[in-house]
């Protein structure tokens, strides 16, 4: 959003977004003093559970994300002062909302400049009646999801906002997950919230007419969080489980908020079916273990069963509505892997057919790569290699380590050792994470020895 800033007439007088408010927003674990033991944990759990709902409702009534975050933060500080002595109230959510409302009034009274929006918010907040209409709370959360994932925001801002405002992660946690400094992440959030306010990005669930355009955006943000955790793009850790777990939590929330949307269930199924293999994907040394060599006994059977059930439900519904979407197709592939007793006994022809279908409708280089690998498994390495060669024109794929790793594997199986060594070397040059580099080096070593 900042890249193309033009010269601005001096008259705007608006200070640049340099001042990053400290401790903005939904307090995750940060608000609770450390070392107070069981009570601190209990309070932390209550805040984690209630803060997201409270925030969504406050944003709607106050019409301003920053004000809502600040007021909620104030309310949580007040809770930390009074709950330990007086006990946790029966409805922590109602308590937090009432208190946040009072705190918002205080804040607005202190401010000298008030926009019309804030005036309206003030009128609401000053209203003595408890009008926190709990029944609509889920609608507010869904509104917030669509605002955070609005396509007018940059992709990295959508991810950051979703983790912050829906997931309730702290700025520090998000910054660490995406390997940027806390200042960078805080500024990214400030800019995004400023755009929401200044450009009037609506706080609403899109109309039926534009929902088919907007829902895939929301799903893409959640899946991006998952894949970043599942296959970290850089750094020492191959898998960042916390990000995967967060994405699954967001997926569950969305499935709850939008029941009967097959792709929402499809995405959740896909994430569960992949995450189930997590424990077997990395060995004790932190190295990547290929699907074929994983100890399938270490796969999470509960997650697989849940994923398969969700997928079945989604596919049944899709059959009535038309064709299944991309997440359902990918989940179907993952389910076939997860249900196979061994790599050899996998239903490769069916996987090949699903990848072909996926590639026909969404021809991305990565899908093409996977389709070629599936062909190799179903029909033999020569057929797979021929399919890979067709993809060689694609620049993005040619500079991707997985493309060369896949070629190297097929060449090895065909006995073309010299070519395989060259392909592994190229893959090694292009790999980003240390765990992937170690894995490729090991494969290269194995092939070179056979030479």
């Amino acid at each position, binding site marked *: 959003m900042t890249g193309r800033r033009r010269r601005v007439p001096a008259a*705007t007088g608006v200070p640049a977004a340099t001042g990053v408010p400290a401790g903005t927003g939904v307090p995750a674990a940060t608000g609770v003093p450390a070392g107070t033991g069981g009570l601190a944990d209990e309070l932390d759990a209550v805040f984690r559970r209630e803060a997201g709902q409270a925030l969504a409702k406050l944003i709607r009534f106050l019409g301003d994300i920053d004000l809502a975050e600040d007021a909620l933060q104030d309310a949580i500080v007040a809770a930390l002062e009074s709950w330990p002595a007086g006990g946790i109230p029966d409805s922590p959510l109602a308590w937090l909302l009432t208190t946040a409302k009072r705190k918002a009034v205080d804040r607005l009274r202190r401010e000298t400049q008030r*926009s*019309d929006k804030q005036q309206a918010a003030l009128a609401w907040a000053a209203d003595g009646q408890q009008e926190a209409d709990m029944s609509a709370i889920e609608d507010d959360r869904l509104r917030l999801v669509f605002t955070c994932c609005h396509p007018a925001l940059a992709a990295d801002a959508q991810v950051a906002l979703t983790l912050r405002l829906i997931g309730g992660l702290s700025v520090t946690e998000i910054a660490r997950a995406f390997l940027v400094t806390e200042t960078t992440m805080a500024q990214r959030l400030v800019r995004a919230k400023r755009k929401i306010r*200044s*450009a*009037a*990005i*609506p706080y609403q669930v899109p109309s039926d007419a*534009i929902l088919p355009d907007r829902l895939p955006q929301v799903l893409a943000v959640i899946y991006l969080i998952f894949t970043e955790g599942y296959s970290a793009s850089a750094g020492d850790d191959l898998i960042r489980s916390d990000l995967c777990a967060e994405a699954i939590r967001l997926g569950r929330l969305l499935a709850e908020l939008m029941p009967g949307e097959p792709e929402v269930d499809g995405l959740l199924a896909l994430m569960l079916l992949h995450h189930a293999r997590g424990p077997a994907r990395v060995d004790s040394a932190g190295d990547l273990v290929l699907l074929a060599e994983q100890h399938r006994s270490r796969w999470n059977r509960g997650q697989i069963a849940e994923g398969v059930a969700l997928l079945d439900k989604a596919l049944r519904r899709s059959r009535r509505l038309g064709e299944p979407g991309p997440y359902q197709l990918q989940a179907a592939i993952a389910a076939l892997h997860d249900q196979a007793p061994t790599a050899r006994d996998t239903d490769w022809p069916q996987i090949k057919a699903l990848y072909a279908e996926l590639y026909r409708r969404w021809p991305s280089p990565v899908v093409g790569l996977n389709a070629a690998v599936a062909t190799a498994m179903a029909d033999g390495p020569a057929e797979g290699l021929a399919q890979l060669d067709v993809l060689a024109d694609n620049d993005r794929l040619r500079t991707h380590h997985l493309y060369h790793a896949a070629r190297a594997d097929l060449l090895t199986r065909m006995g073309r050792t010299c070519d395989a060594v060259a392909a592994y070397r190229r893959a090694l040059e292009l790999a980003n994470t240390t765990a992937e580099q170690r894995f490729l080096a090991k494969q290269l070593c194995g092939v070179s020895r056979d030479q």
Partner: protein
Amino acid sequence: MKYLMMIAVDRSSRPASLAAGEKLMAEYLAFNQRITGSGELVTGDRLEDAGTATSVRVRDGKTMLTDGPFAETTEQLGGFYIIDVPDLDRALELAAQIPNARDGVVEVRPIVAG
């Protein structure tokens, strides 16, 4: 909420034929009528091409004039609308209906509320 919609078109692109030019004008006319009828149009106009622009800068009290637009890019401002709509979604919906959105680009900027 008011928004400025700036229509940028490729400098070199001209309607392929007289008929294509007339068709484009008819589309603009229809668009103008729609947003006038809905009460969303505040104002809007087509601009002479960027070759007629003069950029003005005052430095140390001295006025400096430069021939041409302030930014040299392949796409140049060709026209604009100011609209008054409830939120960004409606603004983006209208921007997508501007005929030159198909070959050029429309930048939507909120106008700071008075």
